[in-house]
């Protein structure tokens, strides 16, 4: 079958052409061994052998800590003026693409978040296929989330089969046309196949609050927050307002939060909807495997495995999910 092909040795040339369009970021292994999404400046190649970055690409859309409103007594509350230059994210795995798809459903839904929307429209997504390791679970169950990208590179012998998924992708193909060729090659099924399956949003019985597993998880959890901070779909945030020293100005800040933290479900007066960590684990499980609110029935877990890799206590929700969701590994 005739397919567009780009040779491995043309990767650098490809990035060079992309850089003419916008700043390009991709997975880069630091001197400390940590793989992070970072700028692919000239001479730096993305580490396409890395299974996952430490933080997912959500860091580009929702900053760990950011000002969402500024207040002055003269002008009242105003959105911060932020210029959002175009950015190309290169080397996104299907799970991370599905993660962005999930965030889009939350932040671009009925009442779009202006900061998210501006940053999202500035992003061009270039995906790449991958091979799941023992921490991944994308292949274990069907997800209704789609691994949408503007361009997708499917790893084949000697290079990549390249396909476009949007008008923006078509434009990029135009930029790359001198290094892209048509070839008759057998393209293996790509790793996006784990996503995009329609799952009937079946109404499941409420999760049993008396399951001993909730307490067992709570007893083993350090409460460090790594699981959700490194999760591509965890997007809970805390909103805080800090007054200025002048007594007339203020900034309103949002920062990443975690449903296992003490104050996550706390309300005025110190009351809490989920007082102990066992209750919070049930809540976390429900969100990750069953979804809730407008996304009821859509599991938020994209199977990237980050929560398992980063947990200092080695916690893993998969065995519980295998039982409660009847997933057959």
């Amino acid at each position: 079958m005739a397919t567009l092909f780009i040779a491995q040795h043309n990767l650098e040339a490809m990035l060079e052409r992309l850089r003419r369009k916008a700043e390009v970021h991709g997975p880069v292994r630091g001197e400390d061994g940590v793989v992070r999404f970072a700028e692919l400046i000239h001479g730096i190649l993305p580490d396409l052998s890395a299974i996952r970055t430490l933080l997912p690409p959500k860091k580009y859309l929702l900053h760990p800590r950011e000002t969402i409103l500024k207040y002055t007594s003269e002008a009242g509350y105003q959105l911060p003026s932020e210029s959002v230059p175009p950015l190309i994210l290169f080397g996104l795995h299907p799970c991370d693409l599905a993660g962005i798809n999930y965030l889009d459903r939350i932040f671009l839904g009925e009442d779009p978040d202006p900061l998210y929307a501006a940053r999202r429209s500035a992003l061009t997504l270039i995906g790449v296929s991958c091979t799941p390791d023992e921490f991944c679970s994308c292949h274990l169950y069907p997800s209704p989330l789609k691994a949408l990208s503007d361009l997708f590179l499917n790893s084949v012998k000697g290079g990549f089969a390249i396909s476009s998924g949007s008008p923006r992708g078509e434009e990029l193909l135009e930029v790359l046309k001198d290094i892209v060729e048509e070839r008759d090659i057998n393209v293996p099924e790509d790793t996006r196949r784990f996503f995009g399956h329609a799952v009937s949003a079946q109404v499941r019985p409420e999760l049993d609050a008396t399951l001993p597993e909730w307490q067992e998880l709570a007893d083993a959890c350090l409460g460090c927050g790594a699981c959700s901070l490194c999760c591509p779909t965890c997007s809970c945030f805390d909103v805080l307002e800090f007054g200025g020293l002048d007594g007339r100005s203020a900034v309103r800040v949002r920062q990443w939060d975690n449903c296992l933290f003490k104050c996550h479900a706390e309300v005025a007066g110190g009351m809490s909807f989920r007082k102990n960590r066992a209750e919070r684990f049930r809540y976390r499980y429900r969100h990750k495997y069953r979804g809730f609110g407008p996304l009821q029935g859509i599991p938020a877990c994209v199977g990237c495995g980050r929560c398992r890799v980063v947990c200092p206590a080695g916690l893993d929700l998969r065995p519980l999910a295998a039982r409660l969701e009847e997933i057959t590994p």
Partner: protein
Amino acid sequence: MRRLRLAIAGLTACSGCQLLLLNCEDELPELLEQFEFHFFPLACSPALLEGEYDAALVEGCISMPHEKELLLELRRRSVYLIALGTCAVWGGVAALRNGESRELLRQQVYGQSPVASETFEPLPLQSVVHVDAVVAGCPPEKEELLRLLADLARGVLPVDIDYSVCAECRMKENLCLLTERDTLCLGPLTLGGCGARCPNMSVPCEGCRGPVPECNLHKALEIYEQKGFDRTTVLARLRRFCPGWKL
């Protein structure tokens, strides 16, 4: 607008937390517009307690009778009393040898020479008076101190931090010194707010801000043990800043 009247006092400690305020050079002119630093012996003399204060910021633990008197006096005169720094909040370094014989410690330090003042086992402020808010850290972050003052100016107290050093360390996308380097990093047990100052520089967290709410000491000790740090070593490390750590 009336300037808020403050008392800034230091008890048994190194004065580093009070110094933090003087190090806010850029903000000092603005601070002087908003606050009257009426009692601040470290910075201005003569310093005499007089009338009432909107807030007292107290650094250090108490280990001498006259400090206890001063603390009670500050409490009586102030709307808010704030524990500034780990010594005031938890006891800190001065309380490192709490639980051991005072007589023995005195001999170790001063030998046979007479000691002028009576001392007792160093205590955090809250063991003597009601504390309205705490700012932990050895020393706290400058931003925390400025935020506290801005909050006071707005008539509110700072929001409690509920996350550990790990949370901010992850947000910075640092290498995890506990899981990847098997070091005795106390991040998971330690109150956040410092922006993971030490792990940012590849230095394991020393626990200088004291315990994070709901920390899981039992499980953490198990994990440290797997990495070759026995319980005694870990507890000794934790107690350098907070003698209250118990199994």
